[in-house]
Structure formats: C-alpha cells, structure tokens
C-alpha cells in the first residue's frame, strides 16, 4: 500500500507477503470465482498456513496480536484483489471478537484453537424480520438443565455455508427486549443446518446463506458473558470491527482508481490520451481525494481502538464515509472506461457491484447516522 507513507517496516513486510500470495494464488482466478459465487478454499488454506488467520488473535492465545491499524492496512491490500474474498477471510476469523471481549479464558483459548487449526467462524445476528431492528430478533435459547436449546433461522449470514463455528445472538428473556439477548458459541457438529444460499450482486466470493437452528443443544458453558449481555457485547464488537471491514471498500476504490488512471493514460480520443482532458483528470483527482480521506478516517478509528479510546464517532463516520466513497469512486471508474467499463470484459463493473454492500452490511449507513445523531444529542 504505497499510498500510505506512514507504514512501519513491519507493516510493509506484512503487506508484501500478503500481496505475493494473493498475486499468485488469487489474482488469476478472481473472474472465475466471482462468476461461480464460491469461496476459493485453497487460497484460504495458504493464507492460514502463512499465519494470516492468526493476525487478529492475541499472542496469549497463540495468535500474532496485530494492531487494528495493521489489520486495516492488510484488509485494504486484500480489497485491492477481491473484497468478497477479503470479507470472508476476515469473518472466518472474526467470530472470536465477541468471545475476546466477554468470554472466559477457557472460551477464548477454545475459539482461538479452532480458528488456528483452520476452522471458519461466522457471526449470526440478522434474521429475515430483524436486520437493523435487532430488537425484533426471534431466535430463542431456552435453558434446559445444563444446556441451552436454540431455535430459529438467521438470514444473510456471511460464511454461513462454510463455517464450522457460529457466534449466535439469541433471545433468552423475551420480556427484556435487547436486554434479554445472549451470545452463544455453537459448533456446526451440534446440528447447525445451512439454508438457502444467496445469489448476490457483489462480493460473490463471500458465500452468504440462511443458518438454521432446529433444537440445537449447546452446553451452558457455551454462553458468552452473562445472560442478557449479548446485544451490548455485539454492539461493542461491531464498533471496533466496522472500520476494519470498510478497509476492503478502500481497497476496491484504490483498485478502481489505479485501473482508471492507467486506462486514461492509454486510451486516446481526439488525438490525445483522455487523461489530458480536464473532464477526466478532475474525475480522477476527486477519486484520489475521496480515497485519501476515507483511508485516513479508517486508520484514525483503528488507532483509537488500539489506544482503547471511545470510537463511537470515528467508527460510524469512517463506516459511512468509506462505503459511500467506494460507491462513488467505482461509479466514476466505470464512467472513465465508458462503454468498456460497462462490459464484463473489463474489471471495473465488478468493483462497482462489490462496492454496494458496504453501505448495507455491518449496520446500514442509515443506522450509522442514527448512532451519530444520538452521539451528538448526548454530547
């Protein structure tokens, strides 16, 4: 990521390693797997072997404990190749986040071991009738002796079809609304079923599906934190993870700008390269400005997280700005490419498709504005 001059030597080295692997293993198959809508598991395995799945796991549990800033930098690099792949890879390890925030030492080590041994996690919050409105959640967990019985259907679950370890938000006390929700670690082998797989517009390498819990029993020891704390823990975890996920959007946008700039230098109209036309060069300049701003907003939020500071505003601002930036920049990239940009023969239409999801998932941009409005009202 030569676009961020303040990288440390270690960060440069990590980015170089990641790029070398993705250049060789992922770049040649992007088109094929985007069309298929499948996650290239062999590339996942190579990255795990090189240690990238250990990146976000603390050293105490056998991971590398990289900073949020470093993770953001690595995510942007992945986003330049394929944001869908990057999202899935990140979610594959990310199910541990709530456990790290509120779990017992034993749970943390257990979850870390599963991921470090090649396991794939996913986080199950959304349901068909409960997206932004988390209070409408219907999945229940009922205590039965030393076990909980989980019932319900989760929707739009990233990594649903490939995960073996699920972090699930379920209602344990219906009377208490969001204060009656709890988090459970649920292993696939306890009977989790995969429902309908989504045929998505973008980030198609990241498989998304329904996840069905039909009388799935888990030991009481799989409850993360206390009963009723689930919603609060998830919100805390999402505030930290949003900026990191938005790094993929910055990667998409940077790729779009790189491709557009190269094309604008090469493509000639009226006898000269189109980059000589102010109409085009200003478009590129605006892309650069937007990308710089989004990247730095994300890295600011990541550094706040590293410093243990409150990042309510930084996280929601970075999430909203970066996702809207990526949509604008990729739309303009298609414009620079003209008719070719609209064709699947050229790579920019895919970037535009991939960019849209970032305004929707991880809390819609409307919800981010609700958060920011609330933050300002209380300030």
């Amino acid at each position, binding site marked *: 990521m030569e676009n961020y001059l303040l990288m440390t030597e270690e960060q440069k080295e990590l980015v170089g390693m990641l790029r070398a692997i993705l250049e060789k293993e992922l770049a040649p198959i992007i088109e094929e797997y985007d069309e298929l809508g499948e996650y290239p598991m062999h590339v996942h395995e190579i990255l795990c*072997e*090189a*240690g*990238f799945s250990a990146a976000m796991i603390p050293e105490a549990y056998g991971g*590398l404990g990289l900073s949020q800033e470093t993770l953001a930098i690595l995510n942007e690099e992945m986003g330049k190749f394929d944001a869908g792949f990057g999202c899935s890879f990140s979610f594959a390890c990310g199910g541990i986040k709530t456990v790290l925030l509120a779990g017992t030492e034993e749970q943390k080590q257990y979850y870390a071991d599963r991921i470090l041994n090649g396991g794939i996690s996913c986080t199950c919050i959304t349901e068909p009738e409960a997206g932004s409105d988390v209070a409408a959640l219907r999945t229940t967990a009922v205590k039965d002796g030393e076990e909980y019985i989980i019932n319900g259907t989760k929707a739009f679950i990233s990594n649903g079809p490939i995960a073996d370890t699920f972090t699930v938000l379920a209602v344990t006390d219906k009377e208490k609304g969001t204060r009656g929700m709890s988090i459970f670690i649920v292993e696939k082998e306890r009977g989790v079923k995969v429902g309908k797989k989504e045929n998505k517009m973008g980030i198609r390498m990241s498989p998304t599906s329904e996840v069905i819990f039909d009388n799935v029993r888990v030991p009481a020891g799989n409850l993360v934190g206390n009963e009723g704390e689930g919603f609060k823990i998830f919100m805390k975890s999402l505030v930290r993870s949003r900026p990191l996920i938005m790094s993929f959007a910055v990667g998409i946008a940077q790729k779009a700008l790189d491709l557009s700039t190269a094309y604008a230098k090469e493509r000639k109209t009226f006898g000269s390269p189109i980059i000589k036309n102010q109409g085009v060069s200003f478009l590129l300049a605006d892309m650069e400005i937007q990308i710089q701003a989004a990247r730095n907003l994300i890295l600011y939020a990541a550094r706040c997280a590293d410093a243990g500071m409150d990042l309510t505003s930084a996280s929601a601002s970075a999430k909203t700005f970066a996702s809207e930036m990526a949509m604008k920049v990729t739309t303009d990239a298609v414009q620079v490419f003209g008719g070719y940009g609209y064709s699947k023969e050229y790579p920019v239409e895919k970037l535009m498709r991939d960019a849209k999801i970032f305004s929707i998932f991880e809390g819609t941009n409307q919800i981010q504005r609700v958060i920011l409005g609330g933050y300002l009202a209380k300030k």
Partner: protein
Amino acid sequence: MNILVCIKQVPDTTEIKINPETNTLIRQGVPSIVNPFDTYALEMAARLKDAAGGEITVITMGPEQAANALRECLAAGADKAYLVNDAAFAGSDTLATSKILAKVCEKTGPFDIIFCGKQAIDGDTGQVGPELAEYLDMAQITNISELELSGAGIKGKKEFGDGYEVVEARLPAVVTVTKTLYEPRYPTIKSKMAARRAQIDKITFADLELEADSIGLKGSPTRVKKTFVPQAKGNGVIIQNEPADTAARKLVALLGENKLV
C-alpha cells in the same frame, strides 16, 4: 544432516532497464531478489530437511545489503546465515569466488550436502557450484530438478534440453539445482518476523586463511572485455481488444502470411 545453501542477491531482471547511451544496466531503483534458482535450491534443501532432519545454513558473498537476501532465506526454511563480506573480495570472478566460498565451507562445515542454484540470472556463468565442488574435492551432480536420499547417498534427476538422466552420488556432494516442479514455500508471518530479528554473522578476509593475491580482482583471471545489448528483433504484433475467437483467427492468418506455420 548438515546442509548448506549458497545463494546470490541479484537484480530483478524483470524490472531491469538498460541505458541506451552507455549500454550498461541501470541499477538504480531496481529491486534486488534472491536468485530464483537459489530459491529452488533452498526449497529442495528444506524438503530434504523435512524428510531427514538436520540444519540448513545459508551463505552469500556480497555487499552489506545482501543480508536482506539471507533474511528472506531464513524466513523460507534456513536455520542460520552468514554474510561473506570484505573489500578484499571485491571484483572476484567465479574462480576467486568459489575459492573463497570453499574456505567458508571448511570454516562453517563440514556439510553433507551443499546446494547451489545452477546459475545466477545476472552473470549466467553456472560455474561457481562445480568449482566449489572441485576445491572441496566433493562429488557433484548438476542441473538437478528432483532429489531423494538413496542408500549411502543421493539420487537426482539431471535435466537436459530434451530429456533427463537419473544420477547418483555419494555424500558429501555438491548439487546445483534447476527449476523444480514445485514452487518455493511461502514464508510465514512468524518466520518472517523471526528472520528480521535474526543475528547474521559476518565472515571477512581475516577469518579465512587465504592469499590476498588469490582472490578479488588480482585472483580473477576472467576479464569482461565488453558488454553490449543485442539488437532488438523488431516489434511484435499484439492483437488487442478482440474476442478470443476473432483474435485466434487473426493470429493464425498472420502466422500463415509470414510462413511461420
């Protein structure tokens, strides 16, 4: 098994440009890499170690910044590394280089197997490996693409342009390695970080019992008389922005017109 891999840091030839006025390489800004054949040699050594156990030492003779190449090798399978570096070594040709390396081997060894890339992509001589074997009075098998332990020694596949021989050697032996069927392993984040912190010992002229006249420029019988850039063969034709079937038809037609098929 005690294994040595000799490597060289070379300019990345895919990035190289030539100054058209002086006909010399523009080295400025060209990234350095580990000679690709040496990376195959290291991987072959690492696989041997995976199978038979032991330790892999890696050495290079070169300037201070060649330590970076050694660190790359430490991240990709080597256990320890030495940088052979002294102003007295400057200007050494292949004969002087292999003489110095042979002394280094005596000092840091003994080794059961010494691996070298079959040639470096900058000088392209392919001489240092065989010369090293001669100085050390060891068996040598060259241009090897596959290797396994067999009996008291090793058995390897020696590549030719149009086929291969299966050759055996007793140990100790020098093996020079060509492109293998497999790719060198990726470093892991942990091995990369460890390599960055690793201690790399330097071996200088004073550490080796060598006659000053037998090394460096004085000890090098080879002289480069002239370097030149071969005439370009003219511009190729690139068929762009066409669907695959139309492009293929055009290509076949062109080849036909020029009596190339």
